[in-house]
């Protein structure tokens, strides 16, 4: 197997950061994906991940696309600030403005893609180098992930999971029934902005590995898979995180074996898991999600 050859060869250390980052990204995206799917935010997630491409172009224009730690940290800071700002603007404008939500997302998506492509094009024309290529930005690249990215991914994972734990009760209520949650005193705008901010953070750290176009897959497919297997929110979240980790690791193996780009390989693995879940559900009687006590997550703990 080429995977074993790569990982036992002299260049093995080149891939360790990507694997370490991949597990952290998978964990955090797997948990968030349940809320994205249940709250029907898939298109918003798609818009935010594409908006990050504008940040990639900006980072390239600023010369922050090298493998050096300072360059990688600068890249993450610029793309992160851009992505989180875009997420919050999309969340706020789509909730408050008279424009339709899909229109707001569509405008932000294409504007940011165009801006990113133009800035990367300018950078290439002016002879600027770096490890962030157009294809790598769009579809991900294992070799672009360094130790700084892996550390950032783990820091982001700890931060996002800690915030989710603290706000789990109002967040779950808001996800389940927004009008009622508002009437029960939950600050629904705060929940929306918070979730979008967390999505922004996750997409930033997922982008180098999965790419702008396919980072959204990590925010949709694991949750959609897990929701076919359980009727308890706690179990759905656990299964989603597990499916996400399996999908990312499986995607990395596919990428090694078939010399495919990382992002599409991860998507193929995640879709295979989802199909497997659908088949398993059908074989188990097709009676829908597994019966469970289904207590609200954390409500009873």
């Amino acid at each position: 197997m080429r995977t074993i050859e790569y990982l036992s060869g002299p260049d093995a250390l080149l891939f360790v950061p990507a694997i370490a980052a991949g597990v952290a990204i998978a964990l955090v995206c797997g948990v968030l994906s349940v809320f994205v799917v249940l709250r029907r935010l898939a298109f918003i997630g798609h818009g935010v991940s594409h908006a990050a491409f504008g940040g990639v172009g900006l980072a390239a224009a600023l010369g922050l696309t090298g493998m050096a730690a300072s360059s990688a940290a600068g890249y993450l800071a610029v793309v992160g600030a851009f992505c989180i700002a875009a997420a919050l603007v999309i969340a706020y404008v789509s909730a408050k403005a008279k424009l339709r939500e899909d229109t707001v997302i569509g405008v932000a998506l294409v504007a940011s893609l165009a801006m990113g492509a133009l800035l990367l094009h300018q950078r290439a024309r002016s002879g600027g180098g770096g490890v962030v290529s157009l294809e790598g930005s769009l579809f991900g690249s294992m070799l672009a992930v360094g130790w700084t990215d892996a550390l950032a991914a783990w820091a982001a994972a700890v931060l996002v999971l800690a915030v989710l734990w603290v706000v789990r009760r109002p967040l779950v209520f808001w996800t389940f029934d927004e009008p009622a949650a508002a009437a029960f005193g939950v600050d629904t705008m705060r929940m929306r902005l918070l979730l979008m901010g967390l999505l922004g953070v996750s997409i930033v750290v997922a982008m180098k590995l999965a790419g702008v176009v396919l980072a959204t897959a990590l925010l949709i497919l694991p949750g959609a898979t897990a929701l076919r297997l359980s009727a308890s929110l706690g179990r759905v979240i656990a299964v989603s995180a597990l499916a996400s980790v399996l999908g990312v690791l499986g995607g990395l193996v596919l990428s090694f074996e078939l010399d495919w780009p990382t992002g599409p390989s991860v998507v193929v693995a995640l879709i295979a898991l989802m199909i497997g879940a659908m088949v398993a559900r059908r074989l188990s009687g097709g009676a829908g999600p597994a019966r469970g006590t289904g207590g609200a997550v954390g409500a009873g703990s």
Partner: protein
Amino acid sequence: MSHAAIELEHVGFTYPTGARALEGVSLRVEEGSTLAVVGPNGGGKSTLLKILLGVMGGYEGSVRLFGMSPEAARRAGVVGYVPQRSEAELSFPVSGRGAVEMGATSRLGGLRRVPGDVRAHVESCLRLVGAESFAERPVGQLSGGQWQRVLIARALAARPRILALDEPLVGIDAPGQRLFAELLASLRRDLRLTIVLVTHDLRTVAGAAPSCDQVACLRRTLHFHAAPGGVTPQVLAQVFQHDLADVFGDVHVDAHRAAECGHDHGGGGGGGGAGGGVVPLRVRPGGGV
């Protein structure tokens, strides 16, 4: 001085589109009474409910719930809200009990464990509405009547002083409607809750009649104060633009002047003058008042 449970004075509301939803609405609901707000779709019922729930600002006039603004009342958990079935995400992986727990724990900090008394309260709410037998079922597998009981238990779990129900009988079959009327009566009797029931369907009012002691008819503004002879089924028929004989059957509807009820309804001063207000009705099946 004790405050009324709900007190509205000359409340108006205009949407950003310019549509006037409420005009000079005044009413006073004493603690422990049950008010049914009826009116046609687009008549301002949902707007009024959102204002009471503290989720819609920008209104004119004064709104007080036990002396508090709706926003303060919302933060204090004064109003328990029972929404329409269609508003919740019923594919959500949660059981009836989990949904009720949300009402009890949404204000708890994330670092706190759920106290034992809160758990016990959730159980008592489930028991009160008769939902123990299906509490473990996923919400998507509950019938309309069962889901409605879970929603009422969720509202009660937040320990409210006012219970607001939005179109409570939509999708509920006849036996479920009878059970609902009994539940409403027991909540009022046992918990001394002030209940506001909002509906476009006069069948809901007719069904809940034994436990309702006030009916407000809302179509942007007070519609019946100027009605000579008070509110009659014929006047209601005019508002709803269809014959109400099939709705009320032998239910006798009779109007009382506000002054006769001893309530100050504001606006028209209870004497049938102009301005906002509520016309209290006695609605009792089988005739008689």
